[in-house]
């Protein structure tokens, strides 16, 4: 009996080792071949998920230009920015997609991006062009909003201040401002509304927060699984449920203080060996044709003004805008997160 087990174990080990050696050889061969014809795009998780825009864009671009795209997720938005500054692993991609307006300054100061000359930039909504040197170009945007589960039986809040009420105890999911761009956006929102008193607000908010998730994916997943009736997301999120579930159960809430906008940017890295091809792709990303793929995959507004919105976006409202920035990108996110951690 024992002998047989040992035999199986030895056999398995031998089998695995030989598989490992063969695949190792095959992979290293395959990798060196691939590297010449592919554009490598660094982005965040939800962009490359199966329902995200990456699969559609990759297919469409290959048909249009015959160039293969390889998307690599760096995790969440915070990790994407951090990857640019990694002292050891120098960024090895051609293109970065998905930095947002709060991260723009820091990303531009790195000097890692080249100025782009894209013909489709003329069709981009003017107020989105925050970088006048066109090193990072906007490709989509939306407004931050809280999404409310109308079947939860709980009264919808009407303002940021409402969220601190005792009836919302453990009812809210937000994202970690250190790691996720919506989390950062929420921090900017509170800084814009409460000015220097934002830390007091976060302390008052703490009891209402059920979870502070590392990424938007996780938070929204928790929300749709019914773990909490309120989640930080975008004014455009209900369109998803309209399109896929034909449901208006999840609704965006208008807040009295106004809603900050998130703009997402893309750029070409200075270290890229294929800058021409990379520019060609970004031009494609901004084209009305490619932008039409974004509303129902990113669930954001396209940046190109010529792109038509799908019917599902009919339930999306535009709210009064609020200009919001982070005062100290290096310290405020961890200060805010630490106000929530360990203070249930």
């Amino acid at each position, binding site marked *: 009996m024992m002998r047989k087990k040992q035999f199986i174990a030895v056999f398995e080990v031998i089998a695995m*080792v030989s598989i490992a050696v063969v695949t190792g050889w095959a992979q290293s061969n395959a990798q060196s071949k691939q590297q010449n014809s592919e554009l490598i795009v660094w982005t965040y998780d939800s962009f*490359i998920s199966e329902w995200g825009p990456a*699969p559609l864009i990759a297919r469409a671009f290959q048909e249009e230009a015959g160039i293969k795209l390889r998307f690599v997720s760096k995790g969440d938005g915070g990790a994407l920015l951090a990857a640019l500054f990694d002292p050891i692993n120098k960024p090895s991609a051609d293109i970065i997609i998905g930095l947002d307006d709060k991260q723009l300054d820091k990303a531009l100061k790195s000097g890692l991006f080249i100025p782009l000359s894209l013909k489709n930039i003329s069709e981009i909504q003017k107020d989105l062009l925050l970088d006048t040197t066109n090193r990072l170009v906007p490709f989509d945007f939306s407004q931050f909003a809280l999404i409310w589960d109308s079947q939860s039986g709980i009264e919808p809040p009407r303002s940021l201040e409402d969220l601190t009420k005792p009836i919302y105890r*453990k009812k809210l999911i937000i994202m970690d401002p250190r790691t996720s761009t919506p989390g950062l956006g929420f921090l900017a929102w509170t800084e814009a509304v409460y000015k220097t008193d934002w830390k007091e607000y976060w302390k008052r908010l703490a009891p209402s927060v059920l979870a502070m998730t*590392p990424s938007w994916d996780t938070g929204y997943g928790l929300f749709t699984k019914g*773990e909490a009736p309120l989640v930080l997301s975008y004014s455009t999120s209900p369109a998803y449920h309209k399109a896929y579930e034909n449901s208006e159960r999840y609704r965006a809430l208008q807040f009295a203080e106004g809603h900050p906008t998130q703009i997402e940017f893309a750029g070409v890295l200075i270290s890229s060996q294929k800058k021409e091809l990379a520019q060609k792709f970004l031009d494609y990303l901004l084209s009305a044709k490619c932008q039409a793929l974004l509303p129902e995959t990113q669930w954001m507004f396209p940046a190109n003004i010529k792109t038509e919105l799908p019917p599902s976006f009919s339930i999306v409202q535009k709210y009064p805008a609020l200009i919001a920035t982070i005062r100290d990108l290096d310290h405020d996110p961890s200060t805010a997160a630490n106000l929530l951690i360990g203070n249930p």
Partner: protein
Amino acid sequence: MRTRIFLYLVLCTILIFSLAPLIAFLQAAFFGLSEAESKTEAIKTFLDFFKRIPESTIAKSLWFTLKQSIASTALAIGLGLPGAWLTARFRFPGRKALLSLAAIPFCFPPILIILAFISYYGKEGLLSTAFSLIFGSRGEYRGILYSFWGLVIVHAFYNFPIVVHQISALLLRIPNTPLEAARTLGAKKLKAFRTGILPWIMPGIGQSAGLIFLYCFFSFTTVLVFGGRAGTTLEVEIYQALRYRSNLALAAVFSVIESACALLGIWMLTRIKGKTYRTVRDFGAARKLVKPKGKQWFLIVLYQIFIIVFFIGPLFSIVIEAFRVPASLNSPDKFGFDNFKRLLTGFQAPLTGAILSTLKLSGIAALLATFIGIIACFSIFFAQRGEKKSNIVAMMMDLLQWLPMAVSPAVIAYGWLFISANHLATSALIAAQALIAWPFVSRTVGASLRAIDSRMHEAAKTLGASPIKAFITIELRTILPSVAAAAAFAFSITAGDVNVPLMLGMSEIETLPLILYRLTAAYRFNEACAAGLVLGLMTGIVFMLKEKVIDVA
């Protein structure tokens, strides 16, 4: 003489292999990566840190780390002790199975357990669905998983089989005499237990507790997924400092504090360990198991139901969820292979590549670990058998074996990254995982090596075998099965590890645990379970070899 030189050479090689990454990391953290700017930065962080100790997060996360480890350990002991007592006293169906659960913490990686718990205890999970069928509404559900207690429960359930296994083995060897003596002298049941049994098993409990405490102290993935609001462990702080702030100096400060605490724990653990050996040696013969009667049956069945509902249930739910295809727009809930299909043929089809790269990277790392582990345990063996002087080799080796329990995997991973040519993440991954796994190999093989009666070797020599021939026919042949077991164990450790690849932030290469982590983080549970099933099958081969491995680990 020649053996001694050889022994010292081996010691030096392993010493360099183990300590080089630590030195490289600390050097890079405090003296910068040859850039003047980062050097001043590092000094600034260091000074800053000492100025701000009271308000800094360090005290807070250290406190949280200790708090959750102590609570998790206590709960694990509480869950495990009844099981240990029942399995040491009675013969009943399922007894063997209960004991062999101890393989689970060793062969299923934490990420798999987390997944199991979410898909079972979550609001939409099997357990709460069952509860809502019985009790009606699930309105009062509080989301316990994402709190401090959720974390503690996961840790405790993950580790309690270790307690069952270790304490049961100890209880089996304690004779009834002290207990009976106490009863004869008029002690009540409880008092008799306190004087007759408790003192004998205390060192054993201490040892299991110490081990579990260390595992929880370094817990990373569980805290990353569940922590959120409750708090962050030092290990997660290190991750944040490295991945999101690129602040090596801060990470180094955290890891030095972490290691200091762990070393203290290990020191206590080794002291207790010496005591257990003594207690066990005092007796020897195992007690006879009896057939339970009446009330005892009730206790056994109760415990088994408890374990099945709260521990086996989650594991089982992975299998169910892997084949469950959640409802979408045009199809209701159904069962099938869709999750696997999506992973195999979907966009950038992650599963095939991940299986291959996991096999490749972990295979190489496990081979390396096995090689180092065997050399290390032989050198310990020879050093102990040889003259007194080379005992220092044995001592140093013994100490080195504790290294992966005392140093953050992040530090090891980053250290190797600095050393490796072109800062290649794959080679750093392999080296770091091999470094984490080799002590388990050397302990497993070493135990079976020590179990050999030295008279056999002498007998072979007397019968005319040369020392080398005697060694090959006696020692080598006896340990061969345990080498296979150790190699499989090393493979399951390296293949299930999500810590090192996450720390290295290597997104070009997907490994199975990484995919599992990403899918779980994205709340794509059914696909995560499908990938988890594949990983579980891969690492589960240790389960077959369980007895040998667990006894030493």
